[in-house]
């Protein structure tokens, strides 16, 4: 095999091993019956008698997801939370990415480093740090009490507010980085041209910068939205027991109820739901790069 062939094969091999194979396993489990055994499901294929192989495909797991409102609600809620988080990331991340892209090269590197810096600590630790900040006798409440702005501690932890803080905080870099790399390529003279032709600065931003950075916004949004839909750790730690997210449901089904087939069906459904978003994003990307901007 040539070196070039090897280079092409490697990523495929990687995807086969770590994506396709696990996916097929999950898909298989989602069509099997629950069983009180280890592992807790019945095989799809069974030898019946000597020479006949029976395939038992069980659609009940999927049907079950639609009979109990819990799953649909959790799914819808996850999408809502992911969507709101993405919008928040857009409003917070765009000015940041824009500021970094327009900063002097020296400052730019420092700012980029600051964006990446949180990755040097584990996500779990950072989320726990937020607990310390947000809890009843946490840092924020104590400071506000000391300043005399409030007279009794605010309830922040285990609320949607805390959950959004956690998600936006954790995913913001994923929004900023692709957007920055897009904005960084922007020809700023276009803004001068727009102003020259009668645009006020904010109009120039709206008519030139924003449409030209669409790809960056899209990439950032996908990188936030897709993982945020399936997010488990942050809602569980910061959102409290009422944060009904699909990732949480999946966890419960899998570990608390040991209902592997149902959990797998949830996972497959989630995937099916996210595929259109990714395909749409892909097609936009291809179209844009074909028409070199």
């Amino acid at each position, binding site marked *: 095999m040539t070196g070039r062939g090897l280079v092409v094969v490697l990523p495929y091999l990687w995807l086969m091993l770590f994506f396709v194979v696990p996916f097929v396993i999950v898909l298989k489990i989602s069509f099997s019956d629950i069983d009180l055994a280890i592992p807790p499901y019945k095989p799809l294929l069974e030898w019946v008698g000597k020479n006949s192989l029976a395939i038992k495909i069980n659609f009940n797991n999927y049907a079950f997801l639609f009979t109990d409102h819990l799953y649909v609600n959790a799914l819808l809620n996850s999408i809502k939370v992911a969507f709101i988080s993405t919008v928040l990331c857009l409003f917070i991340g765009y000015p940041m990415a824009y500021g970094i892209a327009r900063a002097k090269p020296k400052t730019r590197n420092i700012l980029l480093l600051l964006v990446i810096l949180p990755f040097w600590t584990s996500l779990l630790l950072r989320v726990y740090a937020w607990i310390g900040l947000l809890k009843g006798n946490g840092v924020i409440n104590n400071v506000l009490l000391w300043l005399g702005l409030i007279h009794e501690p605010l309830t922040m932890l285990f609320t949607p507010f805390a959950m959004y803080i956690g998600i936006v905080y954790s995913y913001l870099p994923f929004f900023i980085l692709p957007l920055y790399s897009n904005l960084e390529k922007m020809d700023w003279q276009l803004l001068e*041209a727009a102003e020259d032709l009668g645009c006020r600065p904010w109009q120039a931003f709206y008519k030139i910068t924003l449409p030209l950075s669409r790809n960056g916004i899209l990439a950032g949004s996908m990188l936030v939205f897709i993982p945020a839909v399936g997010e488990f750790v942050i809602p569980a730690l910061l959102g409290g027991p009422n944060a009904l997210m699909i990732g949480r449901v999946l966890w419960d089904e899998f570990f608390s109820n040991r209902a592997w087939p149902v959990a797998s069906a949830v996972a497959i459904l989630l995937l099916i739901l996210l595929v259109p978003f990714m395909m749409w994003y892909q097609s936009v990307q291809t179209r844009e790069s074909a028409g070199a901007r």
Partner: protein
Amino acid sequence: MATPATAAVKAQPWKDPAARPYVQVDRVTKSFGEFKAVDDVSLKIYKGEIFCLLGASGCGKTTLLRMLGGFETPTSGKILIDGEDMTGVPPYERPVNMMFQSYALFPHMNVEQNVAFGLKQDRVPKAEIAERVATMLDLVKLSAFAKRKPHQLSGGQRQRVALARSLVKRPKLLLLDEPLGALDKKLREHTQFELIGIQDKLGVTFVVVTHDQEEAMTLASRIGVMNHGEIVQAGTPSEIYEFPSSKFVADFVGSVNMFEGKLIEDEPEYVRIASEELGGTIYVSHGISAPPEATVWAAVRPEKIFMSTAPPEGTDNVVRGAVQDIAYLGDLSIYLVKLPTGKVVRVTQPNTSRHAEAITWDQQVYLCWDATSPVVVTR
């Protein structure tokens, strides 16, 4: 090259003290920290002119242009356009448009949308936008490309889109930053004349920034030569070329032979200069204003020097040398003649005959020039 026959050139308003300047730059200085990019520049530009700011990179010409466009604010001084003080007015409120060096076409819009952009911004009625855009695209011969995106166009076409976009708003003043810089030589020459034609047709006043003196000579009604943030001389192309006011201008515009010397005879009708560099005397048939015995420079253009193998008459303006190098350019040849003093003189001669007896390397030749040819500068 010939000067364009624009209305402004025929009228020569700059010679009329009563004429009202259209653009007035009044003692404008722009500093970036300690550095003065533009230093106390005053300038009057008249309606219908093509005024070229000519200078090497970093001479402040682009900064001056950007101040006219409103992209930079002068540190001190005033800029008036059509009698109105524009000093602090932002670009989007100026009756001025700019054609950027990079063209700065909006990549997400097609040609038509690019040209219509400024009109839409001004809320011009739709029907009028369509009409004016169509007229403008017709003028720059791009009607067939209206639906193309900028990246689907050639360099020359992009340049014309940029021109159409900046002209469609009918600005009082059009600023052009190295308008032909990105084009290859053939296209550049062609576009120069096209640009003059369009300017003449629309009567818009142009201010062009360029580092290319040939471009400036072709386009301009007047040229302002800039150096270190100052305008060192402003005048018509022929004034700049034939009557440079300083060594810098003589040297920057075209090529020149500069002979340093001392004024030995200073009469109202003539001067005589003794030049050690030349190894002879230079006789100039006009008076100059300089103290006697002053050090002056006589500048002689290469095409104004005659070269012969036989000794010419007289002793002034004659020198002997050996041909050191020849560059044959087709229409003319450049000879580098080394004088006994070591000074190398550049001479150009048109190749008028196909079978002229050729002057070759190392040949001894006589160089001479008319008494009217040298320009004497004192700085």
